[in-house]
Every structure is written in C-alpha cells, then in structure tokens.
C-alpha cells in the first residue's frame, strides 16, 4: 500500500474539490435528464405498438408513424387471414377526432378502435369497466391522462360528445399515451367508422397480425406483401422503431438531445479540466518534489488520473441522485424520465473517460516540469 497522495491532496482543498465534483454532477444530471426525457417521449411514441403485441403490422403505403394513419379498405384483412401461419388478423383504426367537454370546450382525442379489445389485451391497464361492453352501443373508454388535459376529472357513467355523437364513458384506462400527448379514447371499430363516414366507412388504418406458433414471420410477411402490394408490412419492432424515428428526425428532438448532451459533456470536461489544471499549477512544486525524490512522470500521472477518477465517480453518484430526485417532479408534469441500466453504464463510463481526458491537459504540463524548480524560492 502507498500513501494516497492523490486523494489526500484532492480533499485538502475542499472548496476546489466541491467545485470539481459539482461540475461533473451538473453534467451528469443534465445528460440524464435530457436523455431520460428523450427516452420517455420515445417510449410514448411506440407505447401502444408495444402493448398491442402484434407480430406484424399492415399499414397504408409509406405511413410515417402510428399517430398519422391513412386509410385502406377494411376487406384487406380477409386476404391476410387467409394466409397460412396467421393465427389472427384484425383491423385497427387510429384517428384523431374532436371531443366536446362539459364546459363547452372542444378538444382533440386520439381514437383507437378495434372489434375486440379484450382479445388484444388493449388497453393494458384498465382501472374501470369491461372492454367487452364497448361493442354493445355508443360507448367509450377514456384514459386517465384526459383528466389533466381536459381540465377536470371524469367518471364512468358520464357522457361526452365525440364528433357530435353522445357517447357514454363506460370504462377508464391508465398509462395509455401517445407522443402527441393527445388523450386516448377507445371505441368499437364500427362505431368509429360511423363517426367519420367520409373517411372511415369501409376502411381501416392498420391490420394487426398475430402469427400461429411456429410460423415463419418472413414467409408470412412475404405473402402479405404479395397479396397487398400497395400496403407496407412491418414487424412490431420495426414499426415501433419507425414511429419513434419519425419524431426524432422530423421535430429536431434528436438534434436537440445530442446538442444538450454535448453541451453537458463540454461543461463537465471544462470544469474538471480547469480545476485540475489550476490545481496542478498550484501544486507544481509538489510535483517537482516528487520528481526530485525519484518519482517519474508516471507517478504524477497516476496522481492526476486518480483525482480525475475520484471526481468522476463522486460527480456521477451525485448527478445520479439529483436526476432521480427530479423524477417525481417530472412525472407531475406528465413527462417521463426513463433511465435504463444501459444509459446508467454509458454515462458512468463517459464521466470516467471525459474526466481522464480532462486530466490529460494537466499531463502535458507535468511532463514539462523541471525538477530543478525545487531549488527555486
């Protein structure tokens, strides 16, 4: 064991140490919050796709994402059902409609319409009502997120007008969200068609396909493409990815995230580099002494490297705590902060690498130290 000059020297000047760790922590928090919010938004962009769990999605040609659907004949589903390897195929309508609120305001709602919601276990978190009842009349399920967006609570048994038709709320769900933040409403397929006859009569917007056990997904997809040459066919993963990518590419969200992450890293590296460099300059005579008593550049690099690593680890820990502390506040404004273990690992490794890179600026200074300076007063 060696005397830990690196740690003791780092902790000796507590204010500088605090500034260094705070700089890293700030950068880590910034990266976690920005990337976490981005992932949260992306999560919403494909949440319904993932929960529907279809193996294949048939869409109209060149549809960009799940929210901006286009129609095609509902009878196409029969051609899909006839393909060997298809266990189930159902039409799905996703459509924006207007909903009139009790206070007279008109808001938007994003309608998901299926013949049989229960069979697709959708919506996945039902907190009131029975999905089977949707097909029995002018009924609707509404997601709880509508309460905040529409400015007040709603209760099962109340009525709302959707495109002028009076519908009874017979159930509610939670967690069903779209990237657009428009609250989700769940209607019977035929009812939805009847609400927008000009566009939806005889039409659907998607076909959900569940494969039979053991079926070859590429073979089934190829057959669907052959039978429906004017539609696109995606796997669930591809469709989720395409929906997410649309928002990243078309809104500048991705660029914004990368810029903020870059700025966060820059702030971190500048703070660490600046404080380590200042510290090196202030301790230059000590490093000269290390050389005079027989130490080499490697001994001093080890000191600086360890100091940078300590700043990285503590800054990461503090930054992580701050990011997690912000989570409940972010949830309160209906946003999600998603911090998966991979992000945790990447940010930790990034903090370490950037802090060590920051220390390298001091390495250059140290390499040029003349040990004869120990004789100067």
């Amino acid at each position, binding site marked *: 064991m*060696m005397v830990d000059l690196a740690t003791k020297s780092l902790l000796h000047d507590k204010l500088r140490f605090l500034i260094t760790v705070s700089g890293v922590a700030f950068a880590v928090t910034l990266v976690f919050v920005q990337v976490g919010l981005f992932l949260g938004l992306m999560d919403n962009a494909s949440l319904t796709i993932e929960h529907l769990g279809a193996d294949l999605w048939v869409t109209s040609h060149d549809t960009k994402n799940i929210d901006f659907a286009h129609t095609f004949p509902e009878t196409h589903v029969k051609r899909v059902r006839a393909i060997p390897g298809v266990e189930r195929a159902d039409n799905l309508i996703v459509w924006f409609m207007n909903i009139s609120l009790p206070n007279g305001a008109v808001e938007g709602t994003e309608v998901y319409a299926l013949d049989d919601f229960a069979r697709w276990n959708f919506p996945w978190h039902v907190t009131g009502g029975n999905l089977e009842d949707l097909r029995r009349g002018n009924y609707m399920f509404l997601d709880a997120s509508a309460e905040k967006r529409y400015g007040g609570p709603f209760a099962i048994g109340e009525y709302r007008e959707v495109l002028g038709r009076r519908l009874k709320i017979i159930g509610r769900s939670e967690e069903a969200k779209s990237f657009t933040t428009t609250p989700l409403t769940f209607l019977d397929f035929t009812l939805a068609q009847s609400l927008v006859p000009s566009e939806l009569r005889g039409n659907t917007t998607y076909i959900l396909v569940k494969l039979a056990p053991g079926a070859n997904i590429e073979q089934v997809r190829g057959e669907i493409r052959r039978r429906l040459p004017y539609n696109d066919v995606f796997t669930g993963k591809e469709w989720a990815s395409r929906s997410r990518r649309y928002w990243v590419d078309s809104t500048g969200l991705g660029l914004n995230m990368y810029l903020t992450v870059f700025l966060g890293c820059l702030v971190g590296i500048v703070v660490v580099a600046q404080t380590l460099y200042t510290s090196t300059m202030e301790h230059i005579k000590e490093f000269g002494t*290390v050389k*005079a*008593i*027989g130490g*080499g550049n490697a*001994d001093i690099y080890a000191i600086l490297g360890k100091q940078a690593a300590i700043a990285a680890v503590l800054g990461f820990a503090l930054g992580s705590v701050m990011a997690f502390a912000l989570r409940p506040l972010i949830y309160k404004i209906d946003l999600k902060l998603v911090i998966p273990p991979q992000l945790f690992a990447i940010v930790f490794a990034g903090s370490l690498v950037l802090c060590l890179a920051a220390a390298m600026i001091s390495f250059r200074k140290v390499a040029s130290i003349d040990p004869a300076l*120990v*004789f100067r007063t």
Partner: protein
Amino acid sequence: MILQARNIQKSFTDGKESIPVLRGIDFGVERGEIVSLEGPSGSGKTTFLSILGCILTPSKGDVVIDGEPVGAKQLNAIRKRSLGFVFQQFNLFPSLTALENIEYALNVKGMRGREARTEAARVIEAVGLGDRQAFLPRDLSGGQKQRVAIARALAGNAPILLADEPTANLDSVVGTQVLEMFRALAKKENRALVIVTHDPKVRAVADRVVKIHDGRLSS
C-alpha cells in the same frame, strides 16, 4: 569516494548566446564527510548541487556515484537509490502528515506498506518528532518542518544527502539546532552530506568548506 564530480561544465543558452555557469569543477566527498559549499548568489552553487543531485545533466564532465559514472538515462533511478534532498522551502506535501510525507518518499523509492511505515517512524523518532508524526505541515513550526524534511532525506538509507540552504528559513537558534542534529545523524549513519549555504553557522558543523566563485571552486 561515494560522490565525485569530474570536470563538470554547464552552460545555459539565452537566445543564441551560451552562458557558462560552471567552468570545470572537480569535487569529491567521502562517506560520513560533511562538506559546506559556499558562494555568492549567481556563483553556480545551486546548479552544481542540481548536477550532483542528478537533477540536471552537465554539459561536459561526469558525476560518479560509488565508482559508477551516472548516465543520462539513470538519473531517476540514482535519485531513488542514492540521494536524499533537503530544500530551503522544506517542500513538504501539505496534505500529508509528517509521517506520511516520509512514508510517501519511501513509497516513491519502491518501499511499500508496513516496511515503509516502520522506516518512516524510525527516522521521525531520530529527528525528535515522534510526538508530531500525525501533524500536518501547517501545524508545525519552521524548525519542525525542516526536521521532517531531513527525516525524509534520511529515510531509505540513501548514502548521499544534499541540502540547499537548509537554515535559510529558520531563526538562528533553531537553525543551529537543526544543523547539529543533521550533522549528528549523518555521522551516525555514515552518510555523505553536502550543504549549499550562505550561512556561516554551517562552517561549524562541516568537516570541509568548499567555495565556488564564477563557476569555479576555490579553497
């Protein structure tokens, strides 16, 4: 002879001009001998000490330690193995305790763990600071700091000790005490000690006084 300098010359360049600082010095010191190296400011004595201490390389000439000429690539290794330094400004690490300052120097020289701690404790006792070993430098007086610096130089049994104005920052009484202690320890442990100084008190503890003037030795 444990330390020899043969025809040491050193020049520094200032732009295109070469300024000679040492103009051919022959010097030697035996184990257990204490030499005072005196000279006015600018005479080249600190440069000479740096060369003896394998911190600077001479422009011409050789430094020979224990019969072996020192090559340019061996400077670090020689400093670790054969040399102990005491500086005018003490140059202690402010974040380390007195004992840790000595232990760290031993660590750099390759001695680790309990062995280093035991040796550090031995030398700090030898300089009379056994009761101050857990003190940080800021809590020690100037004389105590210089004793810690002497203990650091003594640690690890380097046969050659080099001191640069060790009493310059001490008052007269403390300076005398430190010098007497330094002499006693160097003699007891049979170390060669070269002290660069302006301080006439050093003469009283030195076996030999060597004067340097304009880069040359004079008696």
